[in-house]
């Protein structure tokens, strides 16, 4: 029985790209308890509904998070469309799915790079981010933006993609797939990487269910939960089965995300093959009146949007529950009993997006 002491971790830390603060209660090198404190990135974004009307809010909502910004804007638009009973044209749905899945590839590659940096594999980090730049180039060619695109609006999309651009995406995806296959060898089959990840931060299926964890973090423990099963957008036409693993450790989380990159590439290929012709936006008449509850599978897991309107230009109430917020209890559970040296890896393993969480 050693002496207990408290080690502050963050908010500024070499491993963390974003500020989160943890008070780690340690006994020798073991962590007894982790107490998170958040609020370093809190802006009060939801309060802007009193100052911006429901159309302008699309651009604010997209700035909830710079990594999954497209998905945030898309979910908000879908919520308003559901309230107003707008039938979004099929082509717009497919375009949203293509951009959404591409965001997933970009987010997972970003995370894999940070993970490699987390266990000190600098060159692998650089290789992964080099591949990620290819995805950003596709975004720039099709939407004009690199991280925040603003191509969604209530009723559909702002930009269309012609056949040349779709062919370009397919060509680039072949290249990306080839390169991800190369780095996958190191991420999944390298001996020293495995020894750093295997058996660390184990959560069982029951635990992740009880702690209501979401996304790849929950799927890595065998919980088959994915909001894409709901069949919104183009997912109703696409072949889709969520990827799960049963190990529940850091390696499983890495494996699930690597395999999801390939799955997303296949989904985009299928969507481009099936994309219908036609309009990309539906006319919007009147003002929204009613309330809705939207669930969407973001790269980090399930996000929930609650929107309430009452026939005015301004939204009455907006609430966003982001995936990282749901995963924080799971993180604190994995940290209990962990080694101090593994804290960086464990924090990374939930793919923390603090600016989402605090809004």
């Amino acid at each position, binding site marked *: 029985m050693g002496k207990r002491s408290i080690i502050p971790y963050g908010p500024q830390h*070499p491993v963390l790209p974003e500020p989160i603060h943890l008070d780690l209660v340690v006994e020798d090198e073991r962590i007894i308890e982790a107490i998170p404190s958040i609020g370093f*990135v809190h802006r009060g974004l939801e309060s802007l509904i009193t100052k911006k009307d429901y159309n302008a809010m699309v651009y604010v909502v997209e700035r909830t998070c710079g990594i999954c910004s497209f998905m945030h804007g898309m979910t908000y638009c879908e919520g308003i469309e559901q309230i107003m009973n707008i039938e979004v044209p099929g082509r717009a749905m497919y375009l949203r799915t293509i951009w959404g899945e591409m965001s997933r590839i970009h987010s997972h590659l970003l995370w894999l790079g940070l993970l490699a940096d987390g266990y000190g594999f600098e060159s692998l980090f650089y290789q992964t981010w080099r591949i990620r730049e290819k995805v950003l180039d596709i975004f720039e060619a099709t939407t004009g933006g690199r991280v*925040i695109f603003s191509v969604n609006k209530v009723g559909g999309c702002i930009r269309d993609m012609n056949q040349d651009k779709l062919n370009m995406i397919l060509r680039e995806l072949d290249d990306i797939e080839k390169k991800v296959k190369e780095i996958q060898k190191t991420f999944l089959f390298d001996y020293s990487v495995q020894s750093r990840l295997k058996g660390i931060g184990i959560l069982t299926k029951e635990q992740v269910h009880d702690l209501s964890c979401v996304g790849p973090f929950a799927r890595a423990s065998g919980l088959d939960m994915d909001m894409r099963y709901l069949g919104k957008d183009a997912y109703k036409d696409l072949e889709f089965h969520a990827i799960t693993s049963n190990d529940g450790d850091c390696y499983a989380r890495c494996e699930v995300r690597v395999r999801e990159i390939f799955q997303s590439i296949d989904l985009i290929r299928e969507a481009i093959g099936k994309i219908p012709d036609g309009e990309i936006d539906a006319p919007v008449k009147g003002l929204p009146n009613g309330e809705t509850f939207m669930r969407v599978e973001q790269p980090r897991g399930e996000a929930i949007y609650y929107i309430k309107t009452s026939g005015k230009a301004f939204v009455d109430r907006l609430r966003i529950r982001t995936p990282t917020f749901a995963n924080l209890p799971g993180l604190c559970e994995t940290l209990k009993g962990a080694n101090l040296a593994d804290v960086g890896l464990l924090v990374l393993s939930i793919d923390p997006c603090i600016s989402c969480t605090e809004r």
Partner: protein
Amino acid sequence: MSMVKKSPWVLHYDGSSCNGCDIEVLACLTPVYDAERFGIINTGDPMQADILLLTGGINSQNQAVVKQLYDQMPRPKVVVAIGVCACTGGVFKECYNIIGGADTTVPVDIYVPGCAARPQAIIDGIVQAIDLFQKRSDEHELLMKNKGKKADLKTKENNNSSDKGNEA
């Protein structure tokens, strides 16, 4: 750039940004844009850093953190505000928890606009910061050299150097 004699170390802190500028700064440090070719290196330790890259606005919780990071950096130092949120508060300016841009808390030397700031703009900001750092470090050296000399000379040099600083 031709007169650069030193390799400044860069510290990156995310204020209350949406992450967009944040990952663009990281993208600048990785192969495709590779800002490290200008002689900088990324560090996680404020005590060894010369240039502070700040993204995002300032809120009441992170104000103390930003201030502390700035104070821990050794002189001379340069602060670069990246993204429109760090410049003025941006789209979140009207939010209840945002005090304003980075210059409400620490003195900012270079402003890089954009939402999200493009890598080319960030690299331009970093290059200007390197030049400014070189200038300040020359002035610092001059001050140190003249430290033991007569008091009137010291004030004269001081005035000269502060004039130069204003021009920059």
